[in-house]
């Protein structure tokens, strides 16, 4: 038995209504969908789209901070940054694996990124101009990512949800080291305070855009929520982030770059002024401050790794010959 809405969606998606109803019942019972299980083609397509974009974001996300490893102000900060960038590489690997369980190949995903066809989080197309940007990225950008990832850790697809549990644990280290840095500098010398203020001023709005378009303009949200891939909307997550961050940043003496920002007593929410969605779409379409630079760095890294891949393959082939 299944409802009229299931029948309608089954017709739209050209799926067997009984199978679709069984699939939706499994999700409603809180079961995880696993790689071998029946799933609608659209569920598979949406997951591959989301997970591969997420993987690319982790990989490209190494670049803005990676550039600062050699310029870290202390050995402790250098070790932290090295570990953090290494974590991002690992997160990319967990996520490519999760996408592979759906039938996408590692090769086609990497090619799509290198060819510039794949999307990744627009936040990484901004420049990191001072050391304090590493703190802002940790507290703001990773903090925003954690909210999204905590939701995805409960998602209906088993391999994605398990990858997220692991990633969230590691991202908490990323967020907290950034927050620690910002708190300390905000109470530091006038130069440090100015550097932190400048970093937050530049990263605040792009971070709010990370949650994606407003719910009314988010075309994929309906089906993602219906099938338990997302359980909260872009605007809900963004509002929670704003409510968490505004009081803490203000306590640090930092002024947010938003004259309309105010506390709404009635709802208990902090309200921001309008987000500049023209900027968001421009960055997403490739016209952000650092899009070309990021892609060039990624291609260069891949080309520079060519000899390592060749050497590894030659080594494996030599060992194979000795066995035979």
């Amino acid at each position, binding site marked *: 038995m299944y409802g009229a809405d299931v029948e309608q969606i089954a017709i739209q998606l050209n799926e067997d209504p009984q199978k679709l109803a069984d699939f939706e019942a499994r999700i409603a019972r809180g079961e995880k969908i696993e790689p071998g299980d029946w799933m609608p083609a659209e569920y598979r397509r949406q997951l591959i789209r989301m997970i591969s974009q997420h993987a690319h974001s982790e990989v490209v996300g190494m670049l803005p901070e990676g550039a600062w490893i050699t310029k870290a102000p202390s050995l402790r900060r250098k*070790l932290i940054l090295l570990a953090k960038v290494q974590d991002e590489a690992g997160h990319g690997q967990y996520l490519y694996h999760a996408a592979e369980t759906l039938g996408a190949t590692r*090769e086609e995903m990497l090619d799509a990124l290198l060819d510039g066809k794949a999307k990744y989080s627009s936040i990484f197309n901004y420049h990191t101009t001072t050391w304090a940007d590493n703190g802002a990225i940790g507290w703001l950008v990773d903090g925003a990512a954690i909210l999204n990832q905590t939701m995805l850790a409960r998602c209906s697809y088993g391999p994605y949800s398990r990858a997220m549990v692991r990633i969230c644990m590691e991202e908490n280290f990323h967020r907290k080291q950034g927050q620690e840095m910002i708190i300390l500098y905000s109470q530091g010398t006038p130069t440090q305070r100015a550097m932190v203020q400048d970093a937050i001023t530049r990263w605040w709005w792009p971070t709010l855009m990370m949650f994606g378009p407003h719910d009314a303009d988010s075309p994929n949200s309906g089906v993602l929520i219906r099938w338990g891939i997302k359980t909260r909307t872009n605007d809900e997550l963004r509002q929670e982030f704003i409510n968490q961050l505004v009081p803490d940043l203000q*306590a640090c003496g930092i002024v947010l770059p938003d004259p309309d920002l105010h506390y709404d007593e009635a709802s208990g929410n902090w309200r921001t002024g309008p987000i500049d969605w023209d900027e968001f779409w421009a960055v997403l379409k490739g016209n952000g401050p650092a899009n070309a630079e990021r892609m060039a760095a990624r291609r260069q890294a891949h080309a520079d790794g060519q000899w390592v891949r060749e050497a590894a393959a030659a080594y494996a082939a030599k060992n194979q010959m000795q066995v035979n």
Partner: protein
Amino acid sequence: MDTQWPRFMVFQQEGPDQPVVHNGTVHAPDAELAMLNARDVFVRRPEAVALWVVPADAIFTQTQEELAQAAETQLAAGPLASYYVFGKFSQQAQCRQVGQVQASSPLAAVHAAIATFADKQPLWWWVFPASAVLKNESTEAEPMFSAARYKTFKDQAEYPVVTMMRALRNQKANHKDTENTK
């Protein structure tokens, strides 16, 4: 353009009394390099005494559903070999080690597992020949995994940001009080 290397399944044992648990895959040209990749990808935190890599295509899986639907098939009678048996026991869980059986084919190994571990009711069975596994020697565990133990800065508990925020707010409140009494 590169071609894609084979996939290896990665399993990790977090402590001497813990089961070996599946945690993902890596690509590598051979098992030795798969082991090195697996260590970098999955053991950046100190929770391992053993790491296994197994070629993905050596793993045979059967869900309870598939077992129920499968017709009685003639089990191929090859030479007996040792198979590792893994099971996935809950929706959120990873596949974990159940034990070992002797069998003449992967399907026979699943049947042997059902007979041997009758008290276990996993959602899935995974079996693979013991000969397909590369694992670290126990003497290698220390050099492979101990370095991460001293990298305490990777632990989020090292950053007392909640306490720091509270101190900052108290300091401001005290400052305000002093201002008011002036």
